[in-house]
């Protein structure tokens, strides 16, 4: 009898899971496998039927593609700049918000707001701030007596300019850091105070160690998200000026959906996946040395 009930329960569980397993297979895992498979085929314009060509797409990507190396460089530079910038900015703001101050909830909402806004409007709004002749930032520069800058229309400035937007968008990190800070046990701070630690020492030796799991989580998520940067390239720069904002995701979009080379685009996707995987593995491996979990014995 209990066996029969168990089986009935299991059936109920599988029924509950049907929709999301369909989703998991068709939205996530099947496409993921297909992207690897597709990367070995020539398919798209000039080749209406998929034709197996082994590693040719990869050979072409690494040897003759005029954009690939540039796109790799700008993607990594963008991601590193944005991740470092937004980690520092958001931890700093979160620490300030972690004091007893009036209207804290309101301020938190203000810093969080950019993150929820639709990115298209955000990038268009910023493109107006960055505008080369009449933009607000150029007005500020003129007040300081500096020359006008072209920001996103300047090859040397486009990545830092977009990174600044990325930092501005990181309100989610602030909220997560703040929640983490509120979980740092007060007793640690009190003990450190009794031992005569000043506020910097307490930050360095109490706050930071207690926060390492959250710093790690934010670092990982920020890295994965920023490596996938594509909207500003699609919306504002079309990969330019030159190749300076031709992010790797944009290269993939371009190969697959503009030039209609689905196989080749898949090989770009695969390389992109491997790069993200490498970064993730490195982060996880180094995390053993600096992330402290409570009750870890460390």
């Amino acid at each position, binding site marked *: 009898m209990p066996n029969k009930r168990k089986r009935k329960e299991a059936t*109920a569980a599988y029924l509950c899971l049907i929709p*999301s397993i369909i989703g998991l297979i068709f939205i996530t895992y099947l496409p993921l496998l297909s992207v690897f498979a597709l990367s070995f085929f020539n398919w798209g314009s000039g080749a209406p039927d998929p034709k197996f060509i082994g590693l040719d797409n990869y050979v072409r990507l690494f040897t003759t593609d005029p954009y690939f190396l540039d796109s790799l460089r700008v993607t990594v530079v963008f991601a590193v700049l944005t991740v470092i910038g937004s980690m520092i900015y958001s931890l700093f703001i979160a620490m300030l918000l972690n004091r007893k101050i009036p209207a804290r909830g309101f301020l938190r909402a203000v810093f969080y707001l950019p993150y929820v806004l639709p990115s298209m409007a955000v990038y268009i709004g910023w493109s107006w701030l960055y505008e080369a002749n009449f933009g607000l930032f150029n007005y500020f520069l003129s007040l300081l007596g500096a020359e006008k800058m072209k920001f996103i229309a300047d090859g040397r400035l486009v990545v830092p300019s977009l990174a600044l937007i990325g930092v501005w968008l990181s309100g989610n990190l602030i909220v997560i850091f703040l929640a983490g800070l509120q979980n740092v046990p007060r007793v640690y701070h009190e003990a450190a105070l009794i031992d005569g630690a000043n506020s910097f020492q307490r930050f360095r030796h109490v706050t930071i160690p207690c926060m390492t799991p959250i710093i790690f989580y934010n670092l990982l998520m920020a890295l994965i998200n920023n490596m996938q940067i594509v909207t500003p390239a699609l919306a504002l720069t079309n990969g330019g000026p030159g190749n300076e904002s031709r992010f790797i995701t944009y290269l993939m979009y371009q190969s697959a959906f503009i030039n209609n080379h689905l196989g080749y685009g898949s090989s770009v996707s695969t390389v992109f996946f491997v790069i993200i995987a490498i970064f993730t593995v490195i982060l996880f491996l180094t995390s053993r040395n600096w992330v402290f979990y409570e009750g870890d014995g460390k």
Partner: protein
Amino acid sequence: MVRKNRLATALTYAFLCAAALVDIIPFVWMILSSLKPQSEIFSFPPSLLPRQFTLRNYTAAWNAGGLNFARMFMNSMIVAVPATSLCILSSSLAAFAFARIRFSGRDFLFMCFVSAIMMPTMMVMIPTFLLMRPFIDTFVPLIARVMFGLPFVVFLFRQFFMTIPRELDDAALVDGYSKLRIWWSIIMPLSKPVVATLVVFVFQQVYNDFLYPLIFINSKSNFTVQLGLASFRGIYATRYDLLMAASVFTLVPILALFVAAQRYFVEGVVMTGLKG
């Protein structure tokens, strides 16, 4: 000591308020610019407040360039409302199974869901496009992408369901409730705050999404708001007066939702961070 503390708090507060002001500049500047006539917007140095206040940009942008914002808002809602509701239903059902029922393969399946959270969406764009090719230029791909539940939402639901006392289930079982009925009339009503948080979260994602519409929608009559705004910029690349007004349109639903449900917005992120 107390006085020093008070001074530090005052300084922190002043600094935070200044930072908050800087933080909303892009946003405020967008609104101020949208209220200026074209001649004023292209003047240097710029005027801070509109010298000549006008709403003409808004009326002009609503229908400009063969795009119709009323239509595009409709389309976005036709996508976002069913997608969000179905996503919440299927995700919470799956989470219920994970949190409340023992069955073989449970841990392995759950791991499959959790690993899918980290998967970069851009990665799978090409196969997804091929898979949904029969439905090009319809809303089907946009809804199908989320209606079966998102791994992330499943995960958050499950974490919350785990905190609901199991005794409630046992009592209901004794009363002859089926599993499905336990989910619908016991677990879900107790999870209202999480449901609200995740509704806001999913709706915002679907409404803000630009990539899927870009790849799947072709004809103007099927444009979503985000795709419409991008196309609007393609036509009026330098007409910042109209562009700002059009951008403000697209912000309105999200801003309204944010003001109404601010708590749930923020709560969602907190959950993601602490339980991830």
